[in-house]
């Protein structure tokens, strides 16, 4: 168990170090959500108060503009980069256990998500926004959202992307419609009834539906419990799919 944690920490540390060195992704993962939050916060405020507008906007931006790109696109980029450089193959000849590699990438993206949450919260607070709900419930929703994204990221990275140029294709083609359907940038209530039914199968819808009321209205488990449970199911499914695709990818990589 100690060895697993040590190896997980080694991988997570390396992923974070690489991200810090790659200034482009750092700027993107920090700058893009900050800019989006400012824009949407100001747009939704209209001529009214800024604080409530930023309360409503911040969770959607955190889920759609921050975690989506870092925690879905991030693992895809990590896996594809490892395959391209041959480092994955090198790691397969080392004593590192594949499970620790997987959990290291998950841990790194949880850390990135926490950093992004702090930044989004800080910007919202600057404009008078306030987090009103339970920190534990918000943390749980965030954790399940990260697990859902990372699981999907592993799935796409392992199944569909072989080169760095391939990374954006599946993320954009599959992910952006889910973002829109999930009510990230506008209230899901605007969706026509039949699309709302479809949205129930979209994990991003449940991320928004759970985090937005907790953040802006201080909603508790009784109000968002169903969405959290749905999110739990999606997270488990995404991690299961991601693990399976990862296992198949390792088998292919060993034989290549």
């Amino acid at each position, binding site marked *: 168990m100690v060895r697993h944690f040590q190896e997980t920490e*080694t991988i997570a540390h390396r992923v974070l170090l690489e991200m810090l060195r790659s200034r482009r992704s750092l700027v993107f993962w920090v700058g893009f959500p900050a800019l989006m939050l400012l824009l949407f916060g100001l747009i939704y405020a209209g001529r009214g108060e800024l604080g409530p507008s930023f309360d409503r906007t911040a969770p959607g931006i955190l889920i759609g503009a921050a975690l989506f790109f870092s925690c879905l696109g991030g693992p895809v980029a990590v896996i594809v980069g490892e395959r391209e450089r041959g480092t994955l193959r090198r790691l397969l*000849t080392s004593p590192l256990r594949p499970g620790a590699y997987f959990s290291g990438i998950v841990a790194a993206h949880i850390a990135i998500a926490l950093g992004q949450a702090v930044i989004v919260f800080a910007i919202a607070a600057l404009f008078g926004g306030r987090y009103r709900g339970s920190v534990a419930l918000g943390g749980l929703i965030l954790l399940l959202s990260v697990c859902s994204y990372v699981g999907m990221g592993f799935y796409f990275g392992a199944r569909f992307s072989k080169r760095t140029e391939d990374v954006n294709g599946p993320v954009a083609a599959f992910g952006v419609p889910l973002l829109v359907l999930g009510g990230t940038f506008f209230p899901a209530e605007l969706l026509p009834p039949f699309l709302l039914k479809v949205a129930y199968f979209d994990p991003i819808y449940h991320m928004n539906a759970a985090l937005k009321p907790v953040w802006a209205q201080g909603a508790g488990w009784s109000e968002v419990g169903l969405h959290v449970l749905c999110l739990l199911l999606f997270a488990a499914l995404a991690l299961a799919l991601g693990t399976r695709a990862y296992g198949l990818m390792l088998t292919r990589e060993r034989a290549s």
Partner: protein
Amino acid sequence: MIEFKAVKKSFDGKPVLLDLSFHVEPGEIYTLLGPNGAGKTTAINILTGLLTADTGTVRVHREAVAETTRRQLGVAPQEISLYQDLTCRENLAFFGEVFGIRGAHRDRRVAEVMGALGLDPWAGTPIAELSGGWRRRVNLAAALVPEPPALVLDEPTAGLDIESRHHLWRLIEGLRASGVAVLLTTHLLDEAERLSQRIGILDAGRLVAEGSISELRQRISAAQVAEIVSDDEDSVRDRARREGWRLRRYAGRLCVWLPDRLDFPLLVQRLEGVPVTSVSLHEIGLEHIYAELTAGFEEPSPPRDRATVSAAAAAPGRSPAR
């Protein structure tokens, strides 16, 4: 230290390794030579645990290849497999940690390895900013941090200039001298000749010969090789037949395998009357052994209409010359 015993491997029913058996002792460099597709990479992949053998056993330190044997084996892959945005020191520390080396022990090993490979000036430089030669050194260094008793070096000097190559050769010889068992694959015959205590020649999945250079030399029924350049190769063939010399064409050059040692003047005398542009006399080297054992030689085409070539007919400047 490293042992292959009757290892067989097939892909989709096509045999790639056929009863491969060899071993590498501590303090020995054993080179696997063979043309592309001979099975070298498959053998290494089985040793490193990437593939499993269909039958036979592969052992490291008397233990069948498993997760535990990976700690005993350092692998420097042919391609530079490093993290480009991380510095030299960070890469080495990472690969040390992957092998379970942490804290002060890791820092000490990283410093030792960087010192040994002359990497100190580049410790804080990202890999992406290093030249090819330095990257290759870091690639090797990453395999050395865990102090493995056995090393697999897959074409460790590919793409390096002569100076860098010689530097890495000295390093590899130093590792051998310290008792490390080294399994080397290379396409550079001079590298194999310079570094190896023993060489295994692999062809179509079979080990067709194994031994030291002198042992391999004894498998070739020739004492020397004469390389002859001539516009009239038929005359050379005629003379070779008359003298009882075997003819081979190697890398486009016509070679005569001399069963007994000859002085150069005597060779020139025996070629009297054959129009040649140049003649050179060579000791049997690894390239000749390798090509002969892996059928790398093509037999020259049969002679056309024979024309007697007299010594007088040889144009000026076309007499045998070294």
